[in-house]
């Protein structure tokens, strides 16, 4: 991992710790733990380890269901390292519920996180269907389904894909379009999917990397949301900054790490080769 990305991770860990200390609520704790664990995975330095410890020891108990699945799983993965029973309980609940139809939007992510391997039995889409989905419009269910399918087919980058042209180009274009609309989480997700879809370099990957790097602010968090935060503050929504920028920072940093090092697959590093279920001694 380059010093540039490691430095970004160190700054982001400081941001996570400050947000957790500043807001002191269960949702923020969860998001801050996830970001801090990501930071120490990317850059295991005294600064990131200290940030993690501070959040884990001084923040309120996390609300495990307060954020998206990726955030919850990452936070739980970090807490397991200290033998945290609440994290283990959360994961046991996921193991119990994972076969329930329609309960989870992202069953592929759940499988990768719990078992370390790709989800079995998911229908594989043809190249033509993937292209059609990517051209359907970024706000459509077809587009979202294609993105999820690519993540699942690659097990979040652990299974090499060599998707035919122009799928990698279309993913790069969609990523650029998402960033242009300032939808950083979607842009980040599309850039990762592009990385999973093909090992070849691309101008869109370089553009995305540069954009995300430049979106880290002086405080270590990612994304410029002053106007949105001010609007939410006026509307009386509590902890607007933490609710917006912690998840965005998580997505941005995850993506930077995977773009910058083509061999790095954070899913494997964070969840382990055998998955989180094995770490809590449960057969998944």
């Amino acid at each position: 991992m380059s010093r540039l990305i490691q430095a970004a991770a160190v700054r982001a860990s400081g941001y996570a710790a400050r947000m957790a200390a500043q807001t002191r609520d269960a949702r923020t704790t969860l998001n801050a733990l996830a970001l801090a664990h990501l930071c120490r995975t990317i850059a295991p330095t005294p600064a990131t380890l200290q940030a993690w410890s501070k959040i884990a020891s001084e923040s309120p108990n996390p609300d495990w269901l307060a954020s998206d699945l990726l955030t919850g799983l990452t936070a739980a993965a970090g807490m397991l390292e200290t033998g945290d029973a609440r994290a283990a309980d959360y994961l046991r609940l996921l193991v119990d519920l994972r076969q329930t139809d329609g309960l989870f939007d992202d069953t592929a992510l759940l499988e990768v996180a719990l078992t370390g391997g790709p989800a079995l039995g998911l229908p594989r889409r043809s190249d033509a269907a993937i292209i059609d989905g990517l051209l359907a419009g970024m706000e459509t269910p077809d587009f979202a389904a294609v993105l999820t399918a690519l993540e699942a087919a690659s097990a979040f980058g652990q299974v090499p894909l060599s998707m035919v042209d122009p799928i990698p180009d279309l993913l790069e274009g969609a990523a650029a379009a998402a960033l242009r609309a300032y939808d950083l989480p979607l842009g980040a997700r599309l850039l990762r999917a592009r990385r999973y879809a093909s090992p070849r370099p691309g101008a869109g990957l370089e553009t995305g990397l540069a954009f995300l790097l430049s979106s880290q602010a002086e405080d270590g968090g990612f994304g410029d949301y002053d106007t949105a935060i001010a609007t939410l503050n006026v509307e009386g929504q509590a902890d607007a900054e933490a609710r917006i920028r912690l998840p965005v920072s998580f997505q941005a940093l995850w993506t930077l790490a995977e773009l910058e090092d083509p061999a790095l697959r954070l899913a494997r590093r964070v969840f382990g080769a055998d998955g989180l279920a094995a770490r809590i001694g449960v057969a998944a």
Partner: protein
Amino acid sequence: MTLLDITASSPDEIPVAPEIYGVFPDHESRSCLLEGVLSWLGMRLELFDPPQEEAVTGEVPETIVQGRRRKAFGELGAALRLASRAPSLRTHPRIRLLAAEWKRLARERNIFFDARRRIQLFPPMAVALAVLTAIEPGEDQPDRLRLQTVLDRGFMDRVERSAWHKLDLKYYFEAAGLTHGFEGDAALLAQCSLMAPPALPWASTMDLYGVTHLIFHFTDFGTRPLPAVAGFDRDTLDRYVVLALAMCLAERDFDLVAELLMSRLCLGAPADPLSRTAAAALCAAQQAEGFMPDRTWPADVAGLTPAEAMEKEFFGVYHPTVVTLFLIACDMALEPAA
């Protein structure tokens, strides 16, 4: 192989060279797209009709601006000019009809009226002259002298403008046979955004139009290479155009998709899966009436009369539809002769 062997071969055994149709997946899809566009343009021709210029009174001539109807008329003309380069388009019955109507309107509407004072209309007049020069080859263009007089006054080609704006004017001035004082293409390329295009996530739609129009005019729609300039990285530009095309495809901005596809043609890029996919997407986006939708289509026409609604829709969609004609014309004009 003897003559007997050749004549004895069944047609299935004779190898057929693959037919290359530029960016389009096949001849049929390009033809279908073309016929739809031409049909719609023919049906909406009255909406391209420019003002009757000598009837525009009550305004100081120097203050009269182009407006959307003159703009639409000029853009249609520019597309017909490009179409005239492709032999099969030049003789296409609908193109011939459109060109004839365009010429008739240009004359009847007196579009060069008061050319020496209506200086803000000078650029579209130059475009119109270039169009007439192309679609009436060999015919005398008496308005050229009046336009040259304006240029000879020493201001039109001297005021502060971007390299893009200068090139747009220079291109059509030269196509119209006008002499001017703008720098050469190499000097303009060295000053323009193609040297270091703006990062796409931050680029505006106008920035992208700048890129495409610079490419069109530097290459004369693909008939000559970009000028050689120190420090200019051609590969970077190629990759930029590819990414921009993919981005606009994702945004379903078919106007820019067509312009960026044309840019790839002008840069001599081989027809690859992305270009073919983009061209196929254009074909799929074409509406039943033959027009190409813009990003705001369908327009909100609540409370409008049918005529008002048609006009509102027209000014939303005419540009991507005309640009599609540009693309087809460019594709056909650059196609190797059979």
